[in-house]
């Protein structure tokens, strides 16, 4: 340590260090440069370019982009009854998956955070995380086997099967933020509520739920967004049902109509942006 400090005091490195030490704004600018270039310029730029494409059209014969401004894609999207149905259905599926996951995950996370011993906690977290590494596709396929008419559950395919499978897939994403939120919640608060006469349900309603709400919202961002854009699970267990993701996918692949796909893709983006804007004040984004 002494070595580098002494050597550093004379060279250009020392001057750079001293300069950085004195200029906090320069330090900040350097720290922000790369992340902002990547996410602010490249990523947002890509999203913007996609949005611009939504106002173009594709030549019906060649599939080439026709770069003249048109509202036609959005017009089709808004007036087409089938798209409205699909958009509402996708929204419904995303909401249903989020609610199912919330109801299943909250008691699990609570037991993990507040009832299990610290040693057991570590193992429980591992148990919850492990399924995330098992391939998403294989899990969906395992559900397909279970849901098939001769399978373990035998419910058949459709929207219900899609909701069940998606809830299964994204459950860990709901458990982990809630667990982390509940773990941060001091036990003394729960004891205080009890000392002041609150029973279990009342403690939950007035102490646990409000304080863990940001964590719940953080989890819901994952379950909601992951469900909203999914087109693979619905292909595996959804039978003939279609979600927004399928419309986007089919318009890129089979129909080769990127402008219309881009227009359809703005629907989940707008829904997510509204959702993020609504939950930003809860502090959920810091709980992800």
């Amino acid at each position, binding site marked *: *340590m002494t070595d*580098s*400090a002494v050597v*550093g005091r004379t060279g250009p490195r020392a001057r750079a260090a001293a300069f950085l*030490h004195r200029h906090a704004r320069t*330090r*900040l600018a350097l*720290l922000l440069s*790369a*992340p*902002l270039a*990547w*996410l602010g310029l*490249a*990523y*947002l*730029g*890509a999203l913007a*370019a*996609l949005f611009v494409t939504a106002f173009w059209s594709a030549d019906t014969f060649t599939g080439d*982009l026709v770069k003249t401004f048109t509202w036609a894609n959005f017009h089709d999207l808004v007036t087409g009854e089938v798209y409205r149905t699909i958009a509402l259905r996708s929204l419904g599926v995303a909401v249903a998956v989020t609610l199912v996951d919330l109801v299943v995950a909250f*008691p*699990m996370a609570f037991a*993990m955070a507040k*009832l299990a011993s610290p040693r057991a906690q*570590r193992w*429980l*977290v*591992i148990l919850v995380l492990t399924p*995330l*590494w*098992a391939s*998403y*596709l*294989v*899990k969906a*396929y*395992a559900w397909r086997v279970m849901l098939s008419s001769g399978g373990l559950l035998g419910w058949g395919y459709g929207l219900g099967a899609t909701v069940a499978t998606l809830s299964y897939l994204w*459950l860990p994403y709901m458990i982990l933020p809630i667990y982390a939120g509940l*773990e941060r919640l*001091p*036990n003394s608060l*729960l004891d205080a509520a009890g000392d002041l006469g609150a029973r*279990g349900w009342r403690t939950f309603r007035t102490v646990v739920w409000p304080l863990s709400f940001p964590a719940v919202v953080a989890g819901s*961002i*994952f379950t909601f967004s*992951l469900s909203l854009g999914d087109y*693979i699970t619905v292909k595996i267990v959804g039978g003939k049902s279609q979600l927004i*993701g399928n419309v*986007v*996918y089919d318009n*890129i692949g089979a129909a080769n109509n*990127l402008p219309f796909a881009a227009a359809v*893709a703005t629907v989940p983006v707008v829904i*997510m942006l509204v959702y*993020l804007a609504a939950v*930003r004040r809860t502090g959920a*984004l*810091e709980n*992800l």
Partner: protein
Amino acid sequence: MNLSRTARAALWTALVLGLGVVYVPLGVVVLNSFNSDRTFGWPPPGFTLQWWGAAWRSTGVRDALWTSVQAGLGATAIALVLGTMAAFAVQRYRFFGRDTVSLLIVLPIALPGIVTGIALSNTFHSVLGVPLGLFTVIVGHATFCVVTVYNNVLARLRRTGLNMEEASADLGADTFTTFRLVTFPMMRSALLAGGLLAFALSFDEIIVTTFTAGAGVRTLPIWIFENLFRPNQAPVVNVVAAALVIVSVVPIYLAQRLSGGDPQTR
């Protein structure tokens, strides 16, 4: 805590049942990887190791695995750099648009994968003219992996405060020396935990990959998807899935040990 015995029992039951439901399909996958019946007849008529042998010898699996590892490592490396920089900026400084920066980092994972996928592929393809390949997959994955590193480093910075670094500066260390000898060692386990999560996220990703991978690039999930509905490949796919489940315990255990629970709240 003042929970009634019934409430405790109910919560434990929910936890055990929930984990049971989570693990039954995985257990079936692992068991079926030894099922001697090619079509996974239930109950298994016998057990065999031949599918594991077939998967081991499959060059498709091996190539896909290698591609996935490369993509994961590349994306993780970029995410580590960008996520750490952003976390330091947001946690250590007050500036205009600070909330926007954190929103920007969350955005790629908050928007549906298909949107990120087609936006990036459109930009590579028609705006920049970059041919799709492994490089574009890495760029796509890094974009949504930044958030895991960012969150881990942010949490660590919040917990450690500035005292150590100020002490180091008072003792004569310059900015770089302090970073190397004080700040970085404090960050190390958070970086590892965030990096492991980023790698996991990249390793299982299929939607962004579908749109950003060129024709010849096949990550493991893409390989699985291509072979999922081919009856004669089903046992091998199943072995790959089972192997992933079994092997995954190691990095998760490490990440969990390193990030450690927060002891203060107990």
